[in-house]
């Protein structure tokens, strides 16, 4: 286990180094004089000096990278030259909203997907399985941005349920009830998307697990069906589910942006898009770096959980 974790930590360090270099290099894709482009409307000689100092623009590329990396380690992503706010403050207020949305949608996804997959896998190609698989396949073909637009059309516009439409977001601190109401539609979209994926993965894994000899063994011991499903089949199959969940949650940190943007929820994805539209390049860079780091850390966590659920994985 320790050796396994050690290898993962090394991989983590390598990946983080590459990710950070990638994020750093982004601003060098900008056309023309970087300082002029980044400063945008906030272009004053004082700002220019500040930017040069912050990014080390008068030094070589590698020295610039280490200046930038040193600042990142102190959670200092610099100040936006568009509106003067600190990038880390913006990220700090936006991230909890994403965590809340992801939490709600994932609880929903697991609560629906696991029982459905269990039931469907009991009789592969039975009526229930066919309906559930067919439905999930169809849902897979509805992109989130179409789903959210249609939901808004039906729920907020036709049924006129208050507080569910775009731009009705309030923070949890202000008003917990309205906060939850405003997150219902986005969470449904993210949640259903995850449900479909989890259902498909868990179902097909369960179907093959149920053909294993240890299931026959459990059956011949006279164990109840429920116990066999949860105790003997679910545990080995949950590995595939967990791996998928890791990828999927990582995808939500990055992919929830379109739902956030359409519902005007000031999460990290929405901030990223606003920053792109305002050409606030330092904010874009900071957000990209944050999201990438979170996802890499999440993958590391999943690898660690793999080792706990199935200790065989840690032996090479």
């Amino acid at each position, binding site marked *: 286990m320790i050796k396994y974790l050690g290898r993962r930590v090394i991989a983590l360090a390598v990946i983080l180094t590459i990710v950070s270099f990638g994020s750093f290099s*982004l601003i060098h*894709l*900008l056309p023309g004089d970087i300082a002029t482009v980044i400063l945008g409307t906030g272009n004053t000689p004082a700002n220019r000096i500040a930017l040069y100092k912050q990014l080390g623009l008068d030094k070589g590329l590698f020295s610039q990278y280490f200046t930038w990396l040193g600042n990142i380690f102190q959670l200092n992503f610099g100040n936006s030259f568009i509106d003067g706010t600190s990038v880390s403050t913006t990220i700090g207020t936006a991230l909890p909203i994403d965590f809340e949305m992801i939490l709600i949608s994932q609880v929903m996804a697991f609560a629906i997907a696991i029982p459905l997959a269990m039931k469907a896998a009991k009789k592969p190609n039975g009526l229930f399985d066919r309906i559930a698989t067919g439905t999930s396949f169809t849902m897979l*073909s509805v992109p989130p941005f*179409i789903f959210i637009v*249609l939901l808004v059309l039906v729920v907020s516009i036709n049924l006129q349920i208050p507080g569910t439409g775009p731009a009705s977001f309030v923070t949890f601190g202000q008003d917990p009830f309205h906060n939850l109401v405003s997150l219902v539609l986005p969470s449904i979209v993210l949640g259903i998307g995850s449900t479909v*994926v989890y259902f498909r993965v868990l179902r097909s894994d369960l179907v093959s697990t149920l053909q294993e000899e240890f299931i026959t063994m459990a059956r011949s011991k006279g164990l109840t069906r429920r116990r066999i499903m949860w105790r003997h089949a679910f545990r080995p199959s949950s590995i595939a589910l967990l791996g998928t969940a890791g990828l*999927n949650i990582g995808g939500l940190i990055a992919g929830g942006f379109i739902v956030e943007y359409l519902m005007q929820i000031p999460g990290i994805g929405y901030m990223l898009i606003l920053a792109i539209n305002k050409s606030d390049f330092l904010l874009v860079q900071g957000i990209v770096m944050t999201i990438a780091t979170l*996802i*890499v850390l999440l993958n590391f966590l999943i690898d660690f959980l793999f080792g706990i659920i199935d200790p065989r994985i840690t032996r090479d």
Partner: protein
Amino acid sequence: MTSTIENNEVVVLKPEKKEPLGVFFWVCVGWLGVNLLAAIFANFLPIWGPQDSNNYVDLNTGPSFSHLLGTDDLGRDILSRIIYGARVSLGVSFGAMFLAFFIGGIFGMYAAYRRGKLDLILTSVSLVFLAFPSIIAVIAVLSFWTPRSILKITIVIAVTSIPLVYRVIRAATLSAATKDYVLAAKIQGATDRRIMTKELLPNILPTAVSFVMIGIASVIVVEGSLAFLGLSTNVTTPSWGNMINESRSVMQVNPWLVLFPSLAMCLLILSLNFIGDRIRSYYDVSEVKL
């Protein structure tokens, strides 16, 4: 790319009698064909022009005989805009997948066939890139790399798809390369090039085709998302993403404007996913574990 590709499932490995591809499969293939033909020959079809507006007379009409799917808030024909919009979605997605398979596929085959150091290096590199969410990379690069064009969008999406394509093709080639017929060809003295093109390529083709289909579906979604962010084509160019995005403001007045392009997009994605899925199970391609 989106979850369709990334989340691979474990396929049941039970030898079964081959099910025929089924009617629905051919319906899906037909629908894909209709979309492609309409997009290619849009100029010759008896439809309104995508920018024609009837002097702002017929605004936001629902479906009628003169405008089969109705008109938008500027009086432009929706059917025509959907057909011309298919050019963007199909162009970007086919282009990106073609490019990604050309580069990623060649590297994947070569690495899996030759093994050794090159394989080790390429595989580690691909793993590093797969750890990074490609949609963020696409957005980040496109927002900095201005001015944007369809070509740039295609290139960026293609490049970010290469690691995944490489993994899939490499794994498919690996399982084919250990088969006896490859050994037999080797013993007969076939050249590496001959083995790769005549023995390996036909055997990894089903995997490749099935993956291309699902990949194209994902790229259509990615392009649509980019359109919502204003990172795709110019707003005056009709594209499905642009149309859905613009119609949000007039949704209360004219829901058709949201529904038809959404339907066009969903049906095409459904067809592509279904074709990919059926080919995969038909050729019993047991899913490649990434």
